[in-house]
């Protein structure tokens, strides 16, 4: 009966689907919303970059940008920094990915967990922890070195306030991107390709060299590009480590242009090279990974064969742990130590242990409550709104439910090309002047965080929607359900796991966001990451450690919750 009605009421059911089809208004609504989210800030950015103080057209901003050493040096620094980081990440992460995915090395799961942990650690927190560890004179590692070698007080093993120090710290929190891409690719390589090589007489290492490596190379290259991008657009770590060493990167330079007296037009011009480079690199990445399906052509294939390491099993594990010391074990140790130590960079003993810092942060510091509250509100609302947006867009585009779905897909993935600090500048320019004055409210931060998290959320949910075959929905609709009812009763339950996972993914990403937040916060809308950055500038390392540990606890609670959801193993990284 219902089926007859449906058909009777809507002659164009084939294209518009359902008695009351709201997909079309939803489509227009979402397209408009995404346009506002993305087009508005980017337009203001472009506009500001080509006008002078009086609003007259000029190319002078770019002229200054490419002639003044105060801008050229950071540009060059950033380039070398990103390139080195990309390279180091590959050198470190590729062998680790291989060991975990393709060999019988023990503890593979643990290694994967620890890599996930380094991925979710906010890079700026890692940078501060490394100040505690490797500041040339007060760093714990350097103190240890002097005690062991009896070296004079001036001598040091590491100097974290240096260009190499900065590269090291950024690599620590960037290599997981490469690791995951490589390990995923290796997991997917069918065993029979390698079997074929063995049958034809190839020895283990020949097979690895001639079959496995070429198959995983695209993923590695893509990883290198992602690492390059990450290093290029990161703000926190350079602000913490490069400024004391006396140099700027592009992100810190852009930020400094917003300090008093602010020069928004120069900041806008300086932001554009980052934007252009990001777009180019993402195109390159797309080209490399565009054909990534070829490795699994040929239908069902055998389990990947594990290479037997023999007596190298344990040294291999030791190697992995030696790497993981740097992003996780040492920094977390240093933060814990500083949280309960009277002097941040002195090893704590039972006699000197104190709860003063914890007490101070939670009972004396009057911004703690506000910042935690804002962070939680923003985390929850960004994750909720972002997930809803992503799931609807993923559905509309995957099912090709409306004409023009490609535009929607394009708009949803575009923000990936906008570095956080660039988006921050764009949003600042957009929402501090009429008609939309959102500066000073949590809305502007919400817009920033939703925009930043949308691409990754969309991509995760798109593959999840794809995995649900439309025949389930078709069956439901043949039995008389409207499109919405079919969605609610059939598709939604099947997507539940991925939706929850995406929600958590956005939540974790939001509470650690710094580079856009630092441009957009006001005193009433401070978040924990900004508070930590503030405290770092006045040298309150103990308070940072307490707040940082609290942040990590929240993060890991969420990550562990995700991992307990069946069918979802570990956080997925942006992976296109």
């Amino acid at each position: 009966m219902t089926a007859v009605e449906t058909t009777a009421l809507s002659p164009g059911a084939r294209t518009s689907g359902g008695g009351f089809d709201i997909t079309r208004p939803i489509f227009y609504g979402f397209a408009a919303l995404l346009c506002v989210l993305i087009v508005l800030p980017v337009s203001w950015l472009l506009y500001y970059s080509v006008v002078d103080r009086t609003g007259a057209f000029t190319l002078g901003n770019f002229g200054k940008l490419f002639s003044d050493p105060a801008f050229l040096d950071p540009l060059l620094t950033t380039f070398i920094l990103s390139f080195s980081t990309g390279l180091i990440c590959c050198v470190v992460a590729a062998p680790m990915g291989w060991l975990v995915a393709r060999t019988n090395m023990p503890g593979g799961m643990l290694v994967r967990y620890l890599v996930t942990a380094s991925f979710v650690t906010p890079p700026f927190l890692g940078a501060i922890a490394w100040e505690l560890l490797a500041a040339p004179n007060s760093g714990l590692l350097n103190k240890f070195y002097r005690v062991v070698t009896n070296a004079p007080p001036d001598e040091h093993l590491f100097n974290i306030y240096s260009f190499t120090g900065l590269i090291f710290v950024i690599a620590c929190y960037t290599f997981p991107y490469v690791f995951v891409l490589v390990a995923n690719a290796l997991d997917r390589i069918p065993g029979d390709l390698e079997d074929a090589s063995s049958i034809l007489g190839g020895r283990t290492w020949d097979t690895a060299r001639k079959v496995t490596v070429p198959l995983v190379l695209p993923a590695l290259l893509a990883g290198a590009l992602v690492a390059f991008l990450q290093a290029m657009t990161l703000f926190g770590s350079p602000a913490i480590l490069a400024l004391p060493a006396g140099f700027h990167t592009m992100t810190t330079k852009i930020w400094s242009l917003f300090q008093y007296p602010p020069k928004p037009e120069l900041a806008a011009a300086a932001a554009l090279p980052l934007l252009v480079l990001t777009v180019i690199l993402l195109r390159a990445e797309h080209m490399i990974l565009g054909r990534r399906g070829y490795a699994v052509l040929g239908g069902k294939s055998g389990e990947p064969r594990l290479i037997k390491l023999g007596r190298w099993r344990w040294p291999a594990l030791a190697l992995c742990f030696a790497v993981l010391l740097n992003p996780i074990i040492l920094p977390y140790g240093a933060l814990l130590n500083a949280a309960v130590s009277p002097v941040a960079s002195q090893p704590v003993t039972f006699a000197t242990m104190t709860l003063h810092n914890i007490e101070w942060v939670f009972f004396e510091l009057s911004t703690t409550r506000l910042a935690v509250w804002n962070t939680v509100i923003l985390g929850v609302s960004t994750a909720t709104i972002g997930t809803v947006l992503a799931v609807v867009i993923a559905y509309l585009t995957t099912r090709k439910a409306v004409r023009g779905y490609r535009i929607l897909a394009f708009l949803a993935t575009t923000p990936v090309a906008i570095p956080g600090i660039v988006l921050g500048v764009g949003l600042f320019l957009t929402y501090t002047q009429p008609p939309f004055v959102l500066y000073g409210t949590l809305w502007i931060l919400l817009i920033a965080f939703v925009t930043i998290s949308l691409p990754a959320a969309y991509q995760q949910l798109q593959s999840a929607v794809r995995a649900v075959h439309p025949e389930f929905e078709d069956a439901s609709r043949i039995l008389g359900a409207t499109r919405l009812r079919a969605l609610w009763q059939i598709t939604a339950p099947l997507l539940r796991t991925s939706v929850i996972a995406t929600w958590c993914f956005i939540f974790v990403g939001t509470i650690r966001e710094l580079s856009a937040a630092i441009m957009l916060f006001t005193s009433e809308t401070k978040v924990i990451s900004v508070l930590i950055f503030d405290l770092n500038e006045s040298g309150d390392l103990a308070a940072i450690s307490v707040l940082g540990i609290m942040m990590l606890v929240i993060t890991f609670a969420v990550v562990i919750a995700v991992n307990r959801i069946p069918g979802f193993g570990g956080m997925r990284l942006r992976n296109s």
Partner: protein
Amino acid sequence: MRDMKFSRRDVLKSSVAAAAFTTFASPIRAAAPEPTAITPALIAAARKEGKVVYYTSVDLPLAEKIARSFETKYPSITVRVERTGAERVFQRIGQEYASRINAVDVVNSSDAAHFVVWKRDGLLVPYVPEDVAKHYPTEHKDADGQFASFRVWLSVIAYNSSLVKAEDAPKSFADLLDPKWAGKMVKAHPGYSGTIMTATYQMSRDLGWPYFEKLARQRIMQVQSSADPPKKLALGERAVMVDGNEYNIFQLKESGQPVEPVYASEGSPLIIGPNGVFKNAPNPNAARLFQSYCFTPECQQLIIDTGGLRSVHPQTKEKAGRKAFKDIKTMKDNAAEVEKHGDDIKARYTQLFKV
């Protein structure tokens, strides 16, 4: 979520309130109004508002201590401290006011030049606490009653006494150019800190920019806040600090850390940190009560004893063991000149020190 929902209406509300206020406000160039005592009526009105927002650049733990002492004295009025470097405070207020956000009630800046600007722009309300009217010297209060010197201190050289012997320690700014200090000094930034902005003005005036050119070649560790170099000394991260808060050095030294101040033979930069109430303060009564409290002998003695600051309130006593203020050779402060040359100083500094 509630915050977000009401924020726009709040903006609207506060601009209405602002309009109401300006109607009754006295013209900018009026003489100082009659002093105001802390009356039960003022306390009751402040209680009704229940909170006060204090933007300050004083070192955070001290700022929170001042806030807690106010809350103890006037229960049910909470103080929220918004602390960052004075130059950031200045930019933040400018940005917030440009977007019609009236969040700040009372401000304290370590760059007295900021008060020249805020007064010129008509942002401050004339309000004279009783203590200021009765006890404060003329040169430490605004003629129109818009601000007064809440705190006074110095930017000093200092060293870590377990890394440097007293006889080897630098005695003057000139000593810091000795190659033996290369790579061993830490210094704060005038683009962030009002203390350092003021100090950089006085030093560039008295010692000349060539001094900074030479200093920049000493491989300085550049931090932001003037509260940070003392902390870096205490950690043992650097042996000597070029500039930074005398009051942090006192705090650290008196808690047993191995730090020692040096009063440079050329004179130590003198820093004045006034307090003022904003005309568009969202909590106008609590703001006034807090402003009055800040200048009481009680609060002034607190910032001396636990803070290590100096006070110009004649009823306060200096703490034993610290060098008396009158015995120290200081450079001369000049807020008007800092206001005039501030941007230029920042630009030149950035050029020399690269950040």
